[in-house]
């Protein structure tokens, strides 16, 4: 755990800061050289890295393709289905790559009991909200408030920061809640250890018995968990997808507002499909894990509390790290 912490810290603080709009040559420090490859080729490449590399290469192609499609739509009639389809595919793929939304949702779902429907709804809502955020930010600020497209990039950076702060709050809330439950459980287990000794064969326990199995639907659906759910969805959804911002900014400049909006809708639907698959996977994985341990140990609720606390802590750390990174990169033109 400490290694993880130290490592996250190291990444966050070693992050070199630079302005967003760099000119060619501004970031290179020494002369280019043929044998200057410091890091890459000698390393062994794992399966995850290969997957990440594949997604990265595909995204690069998509960026170019989306730009090309927009360029070709200029001055033409019609919806531009090719662009919408491409945006949809980009959405599916983009969500398959590493990203903040997925990290948050899977961490939450793996460490907190929730029903499958809830997970699906969370994924869908978060993905669609990301599209809406991008639309409101870019079209709202450029179209209605008369901002420069460039300034909306700063605005989306701030939207992201708000979402990170929200995420930190959710993480802290989950941590505190889990810690409280944990202390309660410990106290109860101690009390029981001193009093009752019964065998577990029959599994008929009254309400007063400390040996509990899976929480019921009612317990899962507490007010607290609803707040946490909403918080997680907002924390993901308030950060606009960078691909959507890119398409909308280009659409604004090229006078293709409607095409841009359709493209972003396609993108959000694509993102939703991937995120929901991931949410189902995470919920199933957790249910399975709970089923495996539920009948074996009276301490299981203790473990569940521990995992819940751990999840909260992880979200909190992630949020702080993201926030730190977002401040490390300064926008070129100030705020």
């Amino acid at each position, binding site marked *: 755990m400490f290694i993880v912490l130290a490592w996250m810290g190291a990444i966050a603080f070693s992050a070199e800061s630079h302005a967003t709009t760099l000119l060619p040559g501004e970031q290179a420090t020494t002369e280019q050289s043929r044998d200057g490859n410091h890091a890459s080729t000698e390393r062994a490449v794992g399966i995850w890295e290969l997957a990440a590399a594949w997604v990265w290469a595909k995204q690069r192609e998509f960026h170019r393709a989306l*730009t090309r499609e927009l360029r070709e739509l200029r001055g033409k009639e019609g919806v531009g289905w090719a662009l919408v389809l491409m945006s949809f595919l980009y959405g599916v793929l983009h969500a398959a790559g590493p990203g903040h939304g997925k990290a948050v949702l899977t961490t939450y779902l793996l460490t907190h009991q929730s029903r499958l429907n809830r997970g699906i709804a969370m994924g869908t809502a978060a993905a669609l909200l990301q599209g809406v955020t991008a639309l409101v930010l870019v079209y709202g600020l450029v179209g209605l408030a008369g901002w420069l497209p460039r300034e909306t990039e700063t605005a989306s950076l701030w939207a992201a920061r708000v979402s990170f702060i929200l995420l930190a709050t959710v993480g802290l809330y989950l941590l505190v809640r889990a810690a409280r439950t944990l202390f309660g459980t410990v106290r109860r287990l101690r009390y029981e250890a001193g009093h009752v000794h019964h065998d577990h064969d029959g599994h008929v326990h009254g309400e007063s018995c400390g040996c509990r199995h899976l929480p019921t639907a009612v317990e899962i659906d507490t007010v607290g968990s609803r707040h946490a759910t909403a918080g997680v969805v907002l924390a993901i959804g308030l950060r606009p997808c960078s691909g959507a911002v890119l398409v909308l900014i280009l659409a604004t400049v090229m006078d293709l507002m409607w095409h841009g909006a359709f493209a972003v809708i396609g993108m959000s639907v694509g993102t939703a499909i991937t995120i929901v698959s991931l949410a189902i996977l995470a919920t199933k994985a957790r249910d399975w894990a709970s089923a495996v341990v539920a009948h074996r140990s009276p301490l299981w609720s203790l473990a569940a509390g521990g995992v819940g606390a751990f999840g909260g802590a992880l979200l909190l750390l992630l949020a702080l790290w993201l926030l730190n990174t977002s401040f490390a990169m300064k926008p070129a033109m100030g705020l």
Partner: protein
Amino acid sequence: MMGIQHYYRCGMAGLMLGIFLGTSSLQAHHHNWIDVFAEWQFDTKGLISGVKLRWLFEDYYSVLLVDDAVTTGEELQAILNKILSNTAKHHYFLQIEHEGGEASLGTHEQATIGVQNHRIENEFLLPITVPLDPRHRDIVYQIAEPTYYFEMLHAEESPVIVLKDAPPSCRYRLEPPKLDAALVAYAASLGVNESGGDGLGIQFAETVTIRCE
């Protein structure tokens, strides 16, 4: 405590997944690119005496740069001067090999900047100090921004490489970069604020060979 162990394992698996998803290129920077056009200029003796390069910046980067210029009141000309003085330190991102050595370039001339269909375009002529003879030895060149912050490839439109006033026997051949998985994985792992180092870009560069039989 079998159950706890199971739970612990599952928790760790979740942690690993979370960390994998949550790090590396979580905030990979936007893909920037420049389309390059090159016009190689031959003198009357059939030697290459200079190259006129045209850089066409991608649409999104162009929008950001133009808006920055509007905000700061900076003229495009000032931006051009900055670009050229920055890139001059790096051979204008051009590396020409001839007869086992690197050709030396003069200072840029006739530099212009403009906006074409929302894309920033700049053009400049680079004299080659000692003109190169392509008849006996191949001329091999690569264009790359060292850190790969910008990907520089020859444009897909034609004509992209022109051998101006060249003898009829002159040809060129463009080879795409040979990328290996480790290299791409390394580039993919760079976060938004990380630089891949000054040797990265060249490994993603195309190689062009000019030959006169």
